[in-house]
């Protein structure tokens, strides 16, 4: 019997490729998306693994926002004495002035000592100049600095009190990750020069780093185990190359999982296509199946023959898809560009290819099972009596029996398993699969409801062509449910991706409309306040400038319990580690700003008085949650070596998306006025020219004061976000294309029936124009219904994602919705018209004679 099944499958397969080949391409697209994403993810992980040391520039890095304490520097000295190579760097944002072009820009000045980076090669222009920056008075710069400052090699840069000559640019530094240059391009000098620049004054945003070469992993572990408590107590960050690689891999995996799920969506859409193709296929073969049963074929044999065909078609489609996927894999690095932390060399990944093909075949078979079970119900007597099914006792036998229940269960389990595998987490996978299930159920219900409604609300008075087209929605073997499913699915994916993207972009964009500040001046010292204010233009942001004090502080106790004790609690108990250990920059002021909202407690005037020597503070509500504190709790701070006791008087909700000076912790006025502080001020200067002139004047008078130009930060962020969005759209395009193919297949599979219908209409005197109008009526109704349903659901899904996953506010994007709706309806009309061109062209006689 199995030999028969195989033979029949092979013989019939030739024909099936022609009949349902279009669905095969839908599977191809899904497989292509999966293979490209998985291959790319493997490429990136491999690169990160291989380059983990050069990504960090060392085996171990120690970091702090203040000079490393003696305990740590003596540890480093002892490691050096033991033969471990070390180097150091200090990075500080500061203003660079180019006397040649008279331009001024915020840069990240990096003073380097020793052979940093300890791993990885740095590419410079001219070639081989890395190291030149260690000579006194010389500097290497990021290429962006050359462009932004309008300077070239040999030109001079002024950084604070330092003058250096640019000797080259750094084209490729292995430790570069994404948006590190968002604040400003980097300028590399020797440590001595950095110190001579005088930009490390009190309150500067300098980061102090030590790099160590400790090749043996066991040595690194021992170091971490032994000194962990020292690092924690002194606020020194400790990171190994493994941790760095792991962090980067996690970030890339998260993006990979997201892209993979979109790919899986495309594949499952192809699966739905296969399911509906097999359904039509089986219906068309009922007579053949009956004949085969008459001449002695068993149910199982016929079923197996068709199942083999479905699997074979799935295999062909999947292999083709894998080839497309490998091609797409080459383009992903270009699309994502600097959003990926490493240089990626695409390499054939057998695992991704075999996995993709396997999943493609599996999806084809699993989606084909349910409709294929219909062949069991074909009675052999059908070969003698065409009407047997309707008249006989077997009519309406399509019940949910054990095999159907098993097939349904297998389908659901497969979708769930694939989702979990792709998402890389049980919860995310289950949510994704559940969402897909709900989406399919809703689309199916809408499709079925539309069939019902079209029948109930039939427009009896409408013109003939309209009535005929409308009745096609509910005629026997109509395509309504299949089209609503495939198109609705496609509309859903596109609508969701585009709306999420639009909302992310809106939320991440700083409000730079008129009246809003666009420049941030920082590192202003106490005695420079008057002078800086005089330089600011009249009016400015919201008509007034307020110098905001910035007081570096560390948390030392919560409700009298010391930080070390809290830190040693098991993870999950007590305050979050990050909130305990971070370096705070607190402020004091009298009023709430317009980006803050009081959510608990009362502002100063209304707040309850506290004991002498205790200051009242207002804390960000999210931070309070992480610190596990509320109104009335006490926090003790180390402010410049002095312990300051505070009590929480209120909690605030802060809108961080505004370009304002926002603070986790605000003290009441007077409490910290004597403490060491620097000041920041926000202002607005329109026009790039005016901004540049202002920065020049400021730097000339106050070389230590820095200016952050928000438009530049915005550009960098948008660039990165744009690249990620492009990759997502690329993958969503696969899903949309798969939806279009399933639609085209649905049109093609009902062609025979339409041809007979069209031939009859022509015989009865219908003109082509009328037949076309009948078709367009049907497809316009289908396209509109499917697109509208998919888009409404996509708005719900996008709102959920934006609100709960990204924690942003959501606005529907009506422009996007309208464009997708129009596009999909148009696509349906065009596909319908093109797929039916035969019907319009061919004379009716051959069709009626069944030729």
């Amino acid at each position, binding site marked *: *019997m199995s030999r028969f099944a195989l033979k029949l499958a092979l013989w019939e397969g030739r024909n099936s490729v022609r009949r349902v080949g279009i669905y095969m391409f839908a599977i191809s697209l899904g497989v292509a998306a999966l293979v490209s994403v998985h291959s790319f993810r493997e490429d990136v992980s491999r690169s990160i693994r291989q380059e983990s040391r050069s990504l960090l520039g060392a085996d171990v890095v120690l970091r702090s926002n203040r000079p490393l304490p003696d305990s740590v520097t003596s540890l480093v000295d002892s490691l050096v004495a033991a033969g471990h190579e070390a180097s150091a760097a200090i990075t500080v944002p500061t203003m660079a002035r180019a006397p040649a072009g008279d331009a001024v820009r915020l840069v990240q000045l990096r003073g380097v000592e020793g052979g940093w980076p300890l791993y990885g090669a740095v590419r410079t222009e001219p070639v081989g100049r890395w190291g030149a920056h260690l000579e006194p008075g010389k500097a290497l710069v990021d290429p962006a600095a050359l462009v932004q400052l309008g300077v070239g090699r040999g030109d001079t840069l002024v950084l604070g009190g330092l003058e250096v000559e640019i000797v080259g640019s750094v084209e490729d530094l292995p430790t570069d990750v994404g948006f590190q240059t968002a604040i400003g391009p980097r300028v590399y000098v020797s440590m001595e020069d950095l110190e001579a620049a005088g930009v490390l004054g009190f309150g500067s945003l300098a980061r102090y780093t030590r790099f160590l070469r400790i090749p043996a992993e066991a040595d690194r572990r021992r170091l971490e185990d032994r000194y962990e408590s020292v690092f924690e107590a002194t606020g020194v960050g400790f990171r190994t190359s493994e941790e760095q690689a792991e962090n980067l891999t996690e970030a890339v995996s998260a993006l990979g999982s997201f892209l993979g799920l979109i790919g899986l969506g495309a594949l499952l859409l192809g699966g739905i296509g296969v399911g509906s193709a097999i359904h039509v296929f089986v219906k068309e073969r009922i007579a053949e199946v009956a004949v085969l049963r008459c001449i*002695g074929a*068993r*149910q199982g*044999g016929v079923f197996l023959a068709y199942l083999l065909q479905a699997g074979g078609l799935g295999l062909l489609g999947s292999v083709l898809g894998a080839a497309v996927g490998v091609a797409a894999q080459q383009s992903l690095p270009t699309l994502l560009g600097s959003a990926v932390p490493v240089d990626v060399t695409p390499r054939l990944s057998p695992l991704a290819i075999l996995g993709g093909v396997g999943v493609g075949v599996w999806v084809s078979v699993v989606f084909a099972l349910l409709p294929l079970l219909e062949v069991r119900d074909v009675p052999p007597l059908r070969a003698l009596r065409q009407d047997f099914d309707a008249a006989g006792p077997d009519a309406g036998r399509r019940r949910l029996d054990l095999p159907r229940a098993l097939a349904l269960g297998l389908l659901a389990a497969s979708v769930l398993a694939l989702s979990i595998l792709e998402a890389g987490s049980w919860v995310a996978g289950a949510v994704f699969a559940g969402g897909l299930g709900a989406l399919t159920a809703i689309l199916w219900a809408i499709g079925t409801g539309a069939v019902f409604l079209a029948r109930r609300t039939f427009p009896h008075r409408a013109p003939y062509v309209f009535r005929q087209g409308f009745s096609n929605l509910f005629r026997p073997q109509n395509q309504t449910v299949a089209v609503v499913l495939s198109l609705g699915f496609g509309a859903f994916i596109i609508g969701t991706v585009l709306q999420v993207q639009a909302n992310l972009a809106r939320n991440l964009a700083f409000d730079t409309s008129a009246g809003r500040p666009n420049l941030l001046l920082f590192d202003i010292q106490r005695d420079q306040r008057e002078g800086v204010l005089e330089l600011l233009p009249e009016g400015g942001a919201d008509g007034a400038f307020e110098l905001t004090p910035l007081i570096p502080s560390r948390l030392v106790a919560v409700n009298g319990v010391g930080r070390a004790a809290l830190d040693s609690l098991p993870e999950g108990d007590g305050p979050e580690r990050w909130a305990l250990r971070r370096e705070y920059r607190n402020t004091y002021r009298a009023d709430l700003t317009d980006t803050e909202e009081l959510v608990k407690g009362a502002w100063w005037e209304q707040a309850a008085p506290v004991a002498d020597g205790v200051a009242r503070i207002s804390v960000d509500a999210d931070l309070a949650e992480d610190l596990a504190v509320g109104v009335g709790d006490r926090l003790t701070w180390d402010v410049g070596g002095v312990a300051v006791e505070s009590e929480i008087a209120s909690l605030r909700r802060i809108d961080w998306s505004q370009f304002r000076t926002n603070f986790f912790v605000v003290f009441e006025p007077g409490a910290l006025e004597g403490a060491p502080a620097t000041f920041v001020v926000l202002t607005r200067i329109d026009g790039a020219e005016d901004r540049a002139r202002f920065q020049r004047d400021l730097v000339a008078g106050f070389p230590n004061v820095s200016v952050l130009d928000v438009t530049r930060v915005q550009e960098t962020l948008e660039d990165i976000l744009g690249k990620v969005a492009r990759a997502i759209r690329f993958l969503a395009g696969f899903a949309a294309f798969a939806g279009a193919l399933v639609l085209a297949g649905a049109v093609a599979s009902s062609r025979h029936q339409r041809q007979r219908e069209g031939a009859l209409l022509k015989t009865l005197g219908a003109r082509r124009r009328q037949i076309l109008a009948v078709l367009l009526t049907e497809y316009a109704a289908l396209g509109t219904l499917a697109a509208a349903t998919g888009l409404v659901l996509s708005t719900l899904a996008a709102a959920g994602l934006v609100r709960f996953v990204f924690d942003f506010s959501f606005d529907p994007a009506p422009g996007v919705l309208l464009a997708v709706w129009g596009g999909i309806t148009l696509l349906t009309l065009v596909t319908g018209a093109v797929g039916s061109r035969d019907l319009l062209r061919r004379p009716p006689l051959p069709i009626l004679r069944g030729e």
Partner: protein
Amino acid sequence: MILAEGLGKTYRSGGKPLPVLQDVDLKVAPRDILAILGPSGSGKTTLLGLLAGLDEPTTGRVELGGTDLQGLTEDDRAGFRARNVGFVFQTFHLLPTLTALENVRVPLELLGTESGSEIRERSADLLDRVGLGDRLHHYPAQLSGGEQQRVALARAFSNRPRILFADEPTGNLDQETGGKVVDLMEALHDEADTTLVMVTHDLGLAERAHRVVRLSSGRVVSDTGAP
């Protein structure tokens, strides 16, 4: 060879029983040619279907070559047909996606008792025998009605059936072509010692039968040449 006792079939239509065949007793000897005649709706096709085990009777039983069909499952009946029965249909019922040669091979592939080359040789011989030796690789759509029915004949005889059931074998053919097909069917019947049961409207065809059974309203009204 064929034994039917008290055979009856009742369908339900609109909730009411609708008897289409009642109390048919029939005994057909080996190598006989039996024609079943009767007006439309008299139960001819139902009788043929029950005799071939395509459906289960409401009453009575059928025995083919000593095997009681009632004792078999649907799949076992299919297996029995694969070994012992051939079929010719009014509308030919060739598989449109298979060539002439492949169509003839299907019953032998179902049996799976012969090697691929043997099956191929026998199928090609049979097609040659029905005069289609030069049309082996044509699809049904590329053949005329008479040619299609000849392919169907070759298919029906390919598994060397002991019984051949034919449902209006000439119903869709003109007189001349139909005559040729019947000649061929008779010749193959003689060669293979097959018992032949056919349903027909064609009196000319019925005249060539050894025995004619007439049905009316689901009952046998005459039986010429009963043993």
